[in-house]
């Protein structure tokens, strides 16, 4: 029994690893593409955020009030020109290559602010800031000015602060979540879905061709006239497909992990990117991925065996793929993993929940055990179904 299944596994691997094109498109390309695309996206986003940071901007200010002078004078990467502003200078800002911002304060701005009362119904003093949003440097200085002026305006009527951090207390944090929890929360919403998608695409790349394709080409019948038992063929097929899908998934996973530091801006998330997971966490992840890919390969093989040809297999697998993808999206719409153990009997949903819990540092053993055991049982049932199909003349030889 074992040796025949092993012979089938070896043959499937020989087929896969011997086909350089298939190997490249299934294992090397997904990881490589993900790494390149995500890195380019990350670099692009970083460039967008940092572009114009060091470029000098001419800041033309009319009627700069005394109260705001220090703030404006200290604005980084700007050359301050205090002078009356002409309409021509404002019109010149239409040129998006001009690194300039024009600010017009009303005359006697400080006095006007001092004496202003909303109850009088008179319009408040208006500060005009002209800039060009298509010019990153101009836009950056506008954003800084707007923020500074808004802070100044708030300060005028300040009665209380929220989460103030004083100069000597810069280390203080009001968000009590640990850095691990913050990172875990981000990863738990993103990575399980990506893992599921990668594994599925790996299975899809080979299973229909390996089973429906063999039916279509008439090569499965040649196997069926050998003394090998049908369950050996089914087991050999499922195990080899799982192994290849795992490789494909691993390649994609590596692509994600390597490009992640470029995708998540460390400062923006407020955390250092350090994967602080224990050996038990990694073991659970690995076992869950194994059990998931096993059941995925079994079900896709089952559907492929039912299909008349590869094209038909693709059509039959699509609804199943949508269900799996839907399960993958679940963590995005939930704050906690389910506590009821019965929920972990639902295939794919259970894997997603266990992976989510592991990434979020919420993993407990009972759901993990229920998930692993149930997935292995379901895979066994699917392999049994596949065995029946290999033995069914209607399924194997129908046209």
């Amino acid at each position, binding site marked *: 029994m074992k040796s025949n299944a092993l012979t089938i596994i070896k043959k499937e691997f020989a087929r896969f690893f011997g086909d350089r094109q298939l190997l490249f498109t299934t294992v090397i390309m997904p990881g490589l593409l993900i790494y390149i695309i995500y890195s380019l996206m990350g670099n692009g986003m970083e460039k967008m955020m940092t572009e114009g940071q060091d470029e000098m901007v001419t800041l033309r200010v009319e009627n700069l009030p005394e109260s705001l002078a220090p703030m404006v004078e200290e604005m980084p990467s700007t050359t301050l020109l205090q002078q009356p502003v002409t309409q021509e200078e404002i019109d010149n800002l239409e040129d998006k290559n001009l690194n300039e911002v024009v600010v017009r304060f009303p005359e006697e701005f400080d006095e006007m602010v001092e004496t202003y009362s909303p109850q009088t119904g008179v319009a408040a003093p208006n500060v005009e800031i002209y800039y060009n949003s298509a010019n990153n440097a101009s836009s950056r200085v506008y954003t800084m000015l707007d923020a500074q002026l808004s802070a100044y305006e708030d300060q005028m009527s300040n009665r209380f602060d929220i989460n103030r951090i004083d100069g000597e207390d810069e280390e203080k944090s009001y968000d009590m979540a640990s850095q691990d929890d913050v990172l875990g929360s981000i990863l738990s919403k993103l990575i399980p879905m990506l893992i599921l998608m990668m594994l599925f695409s790996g299975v899809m790349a080979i299973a229909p061709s390996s089973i429906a394709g063999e039916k279509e080409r008439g090569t499965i019948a040649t196997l*069926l006239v*050998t003394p090998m038992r049908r369950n050996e063929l089914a087991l050999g097929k499922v195990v080899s497909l799982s192994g290849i899908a795992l490789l494909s998934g691993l390649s994609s996973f590596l692509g994600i992990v390597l490009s992640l530091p470029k995708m998540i801006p460390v400062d923006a998330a407020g955390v250092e990117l350090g994967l602080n997971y224990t050996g038990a966490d990694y073991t659970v992840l690995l076992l869950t991925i194994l059990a998931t890919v096993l059941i995925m390969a079994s079900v896709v093989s089952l559907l492929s065996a039912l299909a008349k040809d590869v094209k038909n297999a693709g059509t039959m697998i699509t609804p199943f793929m949508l269900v799996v993808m839907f399960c993958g999206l679940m963590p995005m719409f939930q704050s906690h993993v389910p506590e009821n153990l019965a929920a972990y009997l639902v295939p794919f949903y259970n894997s997603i929940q266990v992976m989510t819990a592991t990434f979020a540092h919420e993993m407990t053993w009972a759901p993990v055990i229920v998930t692993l055991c149930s997935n292995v049982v379901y895979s066994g049932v699917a392999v049994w179904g596949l065995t029946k199909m290999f033995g069914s003349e209607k399924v194997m030889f129908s046209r």
Partner: protein
Amino acid sequence: MEEILRVEGLSKTFTLSKKQQKIERTESKRKVAVDNLTFSAYRGEIFGLLGPNGAGKTTTLRMLSTLIRPDSGDAVLDGCSVAGQPEEVRARIGFLTSELKLEDFFTPNYLFDFFSQLHHVDETTCKERKQRMFERFGIDKFAEVKVANLSTGMKQKLSLVISLVHNPEIVIFDEPTNGLDVLTARTVTDYLKELRSEGKTIILSTHIFSLVERLCDRVGVIIDGRMVACGTLQEVCDGMNIEDRFFELYKEVKGSEE
């Protein structure tokens, strides 16, 4: 004579789809492909199943090779029942039909080893047998060429070789020369004679009278799933040539149906 194959009351009925009903021009949803077939084959002989297209020859051979299950009856090949011991039966037979294909991606060398492993042939025997068979059929020069790049004739010779990797006692060939060029067809028929001289039993199906006359020791005439005559060529032909005798039998069956 040692009986190596005993077929007893073998029957098979297929359910027709609407499309198949249209093709068959029948309103019946069921088609009796093989009807209570009984015959024997003996060690060291070539037994031919002769019949027109759709007579049930291929269905019979597929049941003997355990690809499909009989609805009733049984066949015992070399002491093993197709209904009860399909794996043992498959280990004792070599089955070849044009429906069985080899994977284009692999080379003859790889495929011979692969199928030998599935038949549990030990490495030394496999190596020795491969060399002998490849040389016999001229495959040795193409041993490392992918099947996809072989000529049609070479592919068919390779299929024949692959079906015999385990040196089976019983060889079942469905239309062995169908679609073959004259040279390959001759190679195949010569090899079948060689196998017979080695004491192997060959069961083949055909609708070619000349093939039956040249090759078969005994023949079974099958029409509409029923065995209408079975025996040595002399017994079946009864002094006539096989073609005339076949049409006489055919008229008898069809006439009695009308």
